[in-house]
């Protein structure tokens, strides 16, 4: 048994056992099996990754079995392991294992725990199938599998209408992206005659410059294929236009947000672009689109994140924004840097989400930051973990020492790569990247200040009021309401600790391998050594710009949320239209509701009532009936005896046929 086979299928096995067998084996064994399977998969994954870092492993494909054979189109179930997969393996299994463990504490009071753990393991299996895919269709299998798991986990608390709505929204919006993905696969097969990824990547450069007709338009072949596939990536990675599902997905339990909607599934789009990077390299137009979409998402999500009050939503928009960074890194050709940021982001963003979960846990399920405050001393371990995450995401580090937290190494590299790419769109991305870094720093510190500093504002929270059985009036001056936040149990703190280590060191330790070592990638992605070299040669002001942006964001947040807490409200009042625009998420949901959702239902009713019933039936069967009825009284007899009439007509026909056959046969 190959270790990759175990890594992929252990979580599936655990999901089946826990999902179907929990009534027989009980809750605790179901949790032990799923968590154990994930830690085993994690333990098997790290040696593979280390093997690639040290250069002792080489790419391989492990066949599993035949899937579909239809003429020229044939592909197997198989597991591909190369550098790119190895990076994803450690990300997925590590975060997943930690999230499993964390959920022991976080979901402790939930009656449906085995179902939750089964879904988590099922998700992990699908994600692993995605990252080990050797053909586009298996990637699509994983793609849809994680979509299913995401749907089930967002809607885990299925009694809540908002959770159900969010789950459907996530699935359907992703399907819009999948439309592009599927058409991309179709076009790939048409052009290359195969869906095998290595074969496509090998043939792609030869197709550069060819043209093809798609939906009546004459287009560059590689551009249209890449753009169609990229629409899929935009859906899964919540890029501008198809991002609306991600903030709503926060309806799911917080461990789910950390695993699926921060560290792994949403990065699948970035993974796809990197996996197919030699293909994207053949189309400058496609790369430009990737860059622009990424940059726009980075800035869009950051602006919305500035003004949200729900702690999870701030982090969700932050994720959306960071995914934008990864995309524009890929768009300027720095795929390895995009993967590096994916890698570090997985640790610090999972950390931030799990930290937020710990805060929510401490605050009796309150998620509104306006009702936090002063928690630093109450839950110190959570505070320090969140601090590590914040230092990592804002990119704190010292240039001259080449040392800093994870985001310092990866995000700053993205900004430098955008500048170094030299193209106009690269400059645009650079500018946006710096600006978004400022906003990132601002909203991250805003979150920290609102949550951990200042005076407690807990009694304003309805959740806390329920807990202490007091109204704000009864509590009087004691804004804590007498509530005592409690630090989370060990099962939750251990994952926070491990991820904190990742957030602090992952950038520093792996920077060389990811950025400077073409041998590490070994052909798994399109590695541009020239760009990496140029990146180190950018002017000093470029290198310092990200740090400067980070410090400005921190200073502004400090000024607004630490020193003068009435300033945000005054500012919001001064710029109220802009504030409303950001606060309402640029009105995307309202727009989509008006141009897609309502018309779909309106047309559905129109086609049903006016089309089927009002036209087809009216002039069809009902019309014929009434014509006959108005002509004579035949209708009544006709209607009651339709079966016999039918049989009669058929028999008459058959008799005619039989007679004719006999005549023919005789002659």
């Amino acid at each position, binding site marked *: 048994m190959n270790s990759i086979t175990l890594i992929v299928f252990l979580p599936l096995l655990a999901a089946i056992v826990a999902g179907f067998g929990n009534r027989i084996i009980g809750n605790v064994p179901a949790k032990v099996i799923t968590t154990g399977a994930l830690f085993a998969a994690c333990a098997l994954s790290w040696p593979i990754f280390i093997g690639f870092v040290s250069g002792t492993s080489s790419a391989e494909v492990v066949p599993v079995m035949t899937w579909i054979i239809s003429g020229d189109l044939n592909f197997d179930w198989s597991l591909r392991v190369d550098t790119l997969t190895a990076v994803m393996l450690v990300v997925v299994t590590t975060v997943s294992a930690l999230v499993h463990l964390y959920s022991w504490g976080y979901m402790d009071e939930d009656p449906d725990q085995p179902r939750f753990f089964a879904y988590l393991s099922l998700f992990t299996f699908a994600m692993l199938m995605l990252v080990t895919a050797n053909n586009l269709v298996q990637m699509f299998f994983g793609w849809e599998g994680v979509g299913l798991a995401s749907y089930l986990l967002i809607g885990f608390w299925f009694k809540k209408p908002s959770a159900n709505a969010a789950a459907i929204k996530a699935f359907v919006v992703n399907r819009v992206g999948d439309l592009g993905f599927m058409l991309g696969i179709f076009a790939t097969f048409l052009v290359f005659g195969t869906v095998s990824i290595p074969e496509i990547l090998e043939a792609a450069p030869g197709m550069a410059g060819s043209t093809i007709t798609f939906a009546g338009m004459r287009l560059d072949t590689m551009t249209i294929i890449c753009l169609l596939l990229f629409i899929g990536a935009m859906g899964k990675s919540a890029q501008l236009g198809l991002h609306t599902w991600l903030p709503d997905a926060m309806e799911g339990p917080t461990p789910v947000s950390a695993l699926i909607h921060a560290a792994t599934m949403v990065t699948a789009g970035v993974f796809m672009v990197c996996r197919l990077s030699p293909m994207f390299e053949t189309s400058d137009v496609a790369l430009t689109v990737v860059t622009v979409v990424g940059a726009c998402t980075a800035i869009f999500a950051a602006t919305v994140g500035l003004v949200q009050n729900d702690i999870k939503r701030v982090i969700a928009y932050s994720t959306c924004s960071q995914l934008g960074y990864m995309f524009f890194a890929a768009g300027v050709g720095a795929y390895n840097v995009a993967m590096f940021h994916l890698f570090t982001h997985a640790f610090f963003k999972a950390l931030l989400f799990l930290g937020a979960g710990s805060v929510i846990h401490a605050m009796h399920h309150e998620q509104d930051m306006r009702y936090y405050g002063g928690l630093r001393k109450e839950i110190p371990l959570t505070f320090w973990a969140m601090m590590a995450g914040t230092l990592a995401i804002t990119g704190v580090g010292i240039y001259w020492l080449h040392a800093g937290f994870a985001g310092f190494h990866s995000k700053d590299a993205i900004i430098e790569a955008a500048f170094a790419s030299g193209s106009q769109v690269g400059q645009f991305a650079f500018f946006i990247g710096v600006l978004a870094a400022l906003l990132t720093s601002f909203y991250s510190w805003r979150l920290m200040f609102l949550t951990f500093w200042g005076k407690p504002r807990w009694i304003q929270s309805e959740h806390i009021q329920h807990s202490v059985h007091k109204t704000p009036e009864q509590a009087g001056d004691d804004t804590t309401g007498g509530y005592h936040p409690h630090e989370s149990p060990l099962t939750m703190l251990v994952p926070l600790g491990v991820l904190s280590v990742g957030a602090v060191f992952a950038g520093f330790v792996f920077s060389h391998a990811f950025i400077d070592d*073409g041998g590490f990638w070994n052909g798994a992605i399109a590695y541009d050594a020239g760009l990496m070299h140029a990146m180190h040669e950018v002017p000093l002001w470029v290198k310092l710009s990200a740090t400067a942006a980070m410090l400005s964001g921190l200073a502004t947040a400090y000024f607004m949320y630490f020193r003068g807490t009435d300033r945000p409200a005054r500012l919001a009042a001064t710029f109220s239209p802009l504030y409303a625009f950001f606060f309402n998420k640029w009105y995307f949901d309202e727009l989509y509701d008006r141009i897609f959702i309502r018309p779909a239902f309106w047309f559905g009713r129109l*086609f049903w009532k006016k089309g089927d019933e009002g036209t087809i039936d009216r002039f069809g069967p009902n019309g014929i009936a009434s014509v006959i009825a108005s002509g004579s009284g035949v209708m009544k007899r006709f209607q009651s005896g339709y079966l016999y009439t039918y049989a009669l007509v058929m028999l008459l026909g058959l008799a005619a*046929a039989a007679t004719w056959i006999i005549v023919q046969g005789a002659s």
Partner: protein
Amino acid sequence: MNQLDFPILSLMMGLPMAAAIICLFLNAQAARWLALATTLALFVLGIVLWANYDIGGPQWQYVERSDLFGNFAWALGIDGISMMLIMLTVFLMPICIGASWESIQTRVGEYMAAFLFMEVLMIGVFAAQDIFLFYILFEAGLIPMYLIIGIWGGANRIYASYKFFLYTLLGSVVMLIAMLWMVQDAGTSDIPTLLNYDFAPEAQTWLWLAFFASFAVKMPMWPVHTWLPDAHVQAPTAGSVILAGVLLKMGGYGFLRFSLPMFPEASEQFIWLVFGLSMVAVIYTSLVALVQQDMKKLIAYSSVAHMAIVTLGLFAFNRQGIEGAVIVMLSHGLVSGALFLCVGVIYDRLHTREIDRYGGLAINMPKYAILFLLFTMASIGLPGTSGFVGEFLSLIGLYEVNSWVTLVATTGIILGAGYMLYLYRRVAFGELVHEDVKAMPDLSAREMALLAPIAAAVMWMGVYPESFMAPIRGDVGALVARIDRAAPEGDAHLKMGEAKAIAKDHAEGEAH
């Protein structure tokens, strides 16, 4: 005679025929047991058929023929496609009998007889090698269906069967006339011979239209689909299962067996018509499904949308499209059959199909919720289920012919997810608000035994479809070879450009 030296196909028709007659004279319980035993025996015979089928052997196997009079012959024989459809029939039949076990309490003997008789006709349609024999069985197959809807159906059953009748009548008359002309022209009523007979292109046009009139109704294609929602709503559960599971496949089988190979030129000529109607069907019926309040109507409308994928795949004129279409037919037979069973399960408890009367079933019926979810996902075409394999192959084949049509048809994956998840949410999720819904028990052992085999088959077909594709490979190959001369040119027109040097090296490890 054939590989078994035994007229197995005649036996598979004779056995249920005899059982049907006996059922008429039995009391309720005996009729149930006889029907179940007979359908299970036929399932076993089906497995024998499949196990002994020689993949890569002669196109027509298990052939038997006895001339009756004139050109008319009792001629049976199957290829791989027929065999898979017969397998679908014999697999679903015992499930239908099981589904009727408790819900049918009146005139049980006649009911079982009607089902058994229908099985005779359905097996016959897929096995007939004589065009008139096909016609008789094809048309007669509707009689037991009328009876099932008309006698054991819901309140508005008369209107439903009347509509069904009007639609089918017109089509079958013109098809018969076309068949008579064909036999005269070719001098034989033997289907395998007719398959290789080249009709004059001018004649093909009207012959194709005559067959189209019949098959489009059976399919059903937009705009002659309005009988289907009414028939489903009025039919008892098992009637819906067999209607969606097998009878809807007869239209597709007709296109596959007659229209395409016998009239290739005309088929090519009318691609625009088939594509046009199918595109409308995908969008139109999906949107209509979205606003339905009645569960059965919703699934019926979704069937029309799925069948449109079949017609699109078939008229792609290439292997992926046609193999995909066959797999969609098989998959839809299983999945929509299972969905109707799922509706039946809760209908038996609450006696309403109104979606809003339910809600929160995942709380008190967890087993049901899991299976219903699986079939919902299969209907949506989630990879790993049978729904994906067929849909994917049909559409990839279609793309080779026309990217516009594919773009429109593929939006079905978005709309399908929309209406099915919306249905699932309203039935299974939310709070248990109604007291009577709260009292509903989870699946009984009998219901579990009906749904579990379908679930297994759906997963099997999704993960390892090769079992189902290997038998049809040769036959689709023969069909593609036959129609290749008329195959339309794709709209892609790929044109190679000047070889462009890619400036950037691809990770040759040249890092400094």
